[in-house]
């Protein structure tokens, strides 16, 4: 198994990619047991990695995903789809009974992905995921969820998602690092380049193609039950559209990051701004960086910021050896 991180951490091989609905049920049971005092809340991250070998994409599911995201149905896996394939493995770490934060209601703060090369839909992929860097945040406690995807022993995709458990304080001294978030500068919208019109059903449709049936995305009642104002768009739906629109024909390495600033309530409109900067070394690489902002024009509030950087094959191609 490839993968960075410290040596000696036990890796737990799962037979197959777990189902997300089962993980959410397990998380719900655990939350109830903790609430009534039947289960303890640990204060440290579990020292474990979860791994699944030989994951493959289903062509029909892949086509559905690509079409929902307005992306071309190529025989390559969209960068966000690699996240989707590996996501349940990462979630299974969060759903462990020795994981200190409550999975349900955790807020997705950001995603950063480094992809070394494009991945064909026929490739067999090995996934390993773990949690690290449990740390205090102004509004609670945050944690990084790291996922690595490899093909034939070569790492092709690394993703780091940051999650926030709102209102959860772990250990003494956590409050010391609290900052006031009110010093965030006022948002002034850039010149728009596009608009995403998201209907009320987009959360359910994205759940169907991604397997992420988190109730906060499905309907207003299920979202309100978990403390949201209403159903909100999946962060990865926004990320997938951002990446695909910024680089519609990726050919080599692809790096991107998205920071979620406020949830997109459904139905809703996200005004977007894409700004492309070409880094023309010799002008032939087609490499460049696109900065993206998504916001609500009505509320003058940013929903997310991000960037996508495309470049030549960063290794792993036949020519590079």
């Amino acid at each position, binding site marked *: 198994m490839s993968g960075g991180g410290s040596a000696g951490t036990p890796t737990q091989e799962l037979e197959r990619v777990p189902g997300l609905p089962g993980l959410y049920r397990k998380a719900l049971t655990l939350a109830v047991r903790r609430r009534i005092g039947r289960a303890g809340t640990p204060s440290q991250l579990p020292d474990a990695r979860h791994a699944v070998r030989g994951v493959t994409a289903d062509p029909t599911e892949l086509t559905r995903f690509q079409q929902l995201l*307005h992306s071309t149905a190529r025989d390559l896996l969209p960068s966000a789809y690699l996240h989707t394939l590996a996501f349940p493995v990462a979630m299974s770490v969060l759903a462990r009974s020795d994981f200190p934060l409550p999975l349900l209601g955790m807020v997705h703060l950001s995603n950063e992905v480094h992809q070394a090369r494009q991945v064909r839909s026929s490739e067999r992929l090995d996934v390993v995921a773990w949690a690290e860097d449990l740390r205090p945040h102004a509004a609670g406690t945050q944690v990084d969820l790291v996922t690595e995807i490899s093909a034939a022993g070569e790492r092709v995709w690394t993703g780091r998602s940051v999650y926030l458990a709102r209102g959860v304080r772990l250990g003494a001294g956590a409050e010391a690092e609290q900052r006031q978030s009110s010093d965030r500068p006022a948002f002034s919208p850039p*010149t728009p*380049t*596009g*608009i995403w019109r998201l209907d009320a*059903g987009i959360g359910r449709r994205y759940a169907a193609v991604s397997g992420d049936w988190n109730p906060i995305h499905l309907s207003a009642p299920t979202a309100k039950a978990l403390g949201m104002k209403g159903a909100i768009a999946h962060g990865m739906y926004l990320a997938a559209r951002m990446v695909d629109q910024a680089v519609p024909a990726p050919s080599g390495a692809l790096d991107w990051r998205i920071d979620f600033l406020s949830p997109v309530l459904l139905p809703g409109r996200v005004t977007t*701004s894409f700004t*492309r900067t070409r880094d023309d070394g010799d002008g032939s690489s087609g490499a460049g960086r696109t900065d993206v902002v998504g916001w609500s024009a009505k509320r003058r509030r940013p929903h997310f910021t991000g960037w996508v950087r495309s470049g030549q094959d960063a290794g792993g191609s036949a020519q590079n050896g």
Partner: protein
Amino acid sequence: MTDQVQAHNAPSTPRTAVVIGGNRIPFARTGGAYAYASNQDMLIAALDGLIARFGLQGERMGEVAAGAVLKHTRDFNLTREAVLGSALSPETPAYDLQQACATGLETVVGLSNKIKLGQIDSGIAGGVDSASDAPIAVSEGLRRVLLDLGRAKTTQQKIRILATLRPRDLSPSVPGTGEPRTGLSMGEHQAITTAAWKITREEQDQLAYQSHHNLAAAYERGFFEDLVTGYRGLVKDANLRPDTSVEKLATLKPVFGKDLETPATMTAGNSTPLTDGAAVVLLGSEEYAAAHNLPMLANIVDAEAAAVDFVSGEEGLLMAPVHAMPRLLARNGFTFDDFDFFEIHEAFAGTVLASLAAWEDEDYCKRVLGLDGALGSIDRSKLNVNGSSLAAGHPFAATGGRIVASLAKTLSEKGGRGLISVCAAGGQGVVAILEARN
């Protein structure tokens, strides 16, 4: 009619392609006089008038090229079907072309190139569009279910497929003017460009006023008598407001750009309305025109297409002609001073004004167009002298034919050289040069 084998060999140097004449039906506002006429009906109506005017009954033309932007799937061979429904020889070949609002101009460019190369001696170019009789499709969900049902073999499979149908799948899907990759309508895109170039409401209203004024004056002096054939009771473009004024235009409420940080300036008065109509142009070699005793209004000199990256916001959606223009001028050794007439399609008043501003902007021309300095200014008295789309309306694919025929006639009357600029959806644009023959 028997096939005649051409005696001459294809010429090794391009020959001249000329505009012989044109014909269109008056443009109607959507839901108006042509509400129930199909694209094919209107294209045939425009062809009928052209055939009658130039005595083309039974003629086997080299080729007919036309297109429509809003097109039904049953119209896969729209132009050939129109030929079969016309008085032209049924042995006249035809093809459909689609380049959004540049469709009409591009058919002229394509056929004139074939004439120049000696592949054909004559051709009819044009386009048609109906916003009234627009295709309505079933929703994507229902379409999938129907296609899957067709492929299902057992009743069980069929039931399973039907069960996936959702109530929302039953509402139809109507074509919009939104750009597929940005979700913004053409007007919203133009509003961004209009604001970026700081084009004022007053300038836009003034241009719209001028368009109505010029078109009305052209009708008044009979300019369109041999360019337009009445249809379904219409004898003039229904959108024309001869009595409009800058004051009246100033009372209209803005419709685009209301979400921007800058004041909204684009109204229904300085934007083109949805329109129905058709226009065709008769083209030929000099030999063909002479042999058939037909007039030669103008030569088709050259054309250039361009496209811009509007998806990333690098350039405005309708700014592609701004990029095509310096390339076309350089190839032909011309500057704006070499032209007597400019036909810049008025998709929106802001489009024309932003284009003019861009060509006058030294920094932009250097930085974006890669020129040594500003491309130049266009004398407003030479611009759209017989009115343009703001007054006439803009049935997308018909606009190119309208412009080419009007400019060719102007050049035959006044002499000189004319420049055409047409912007199109998808960040595209086509520009072309026409020249008087004397």
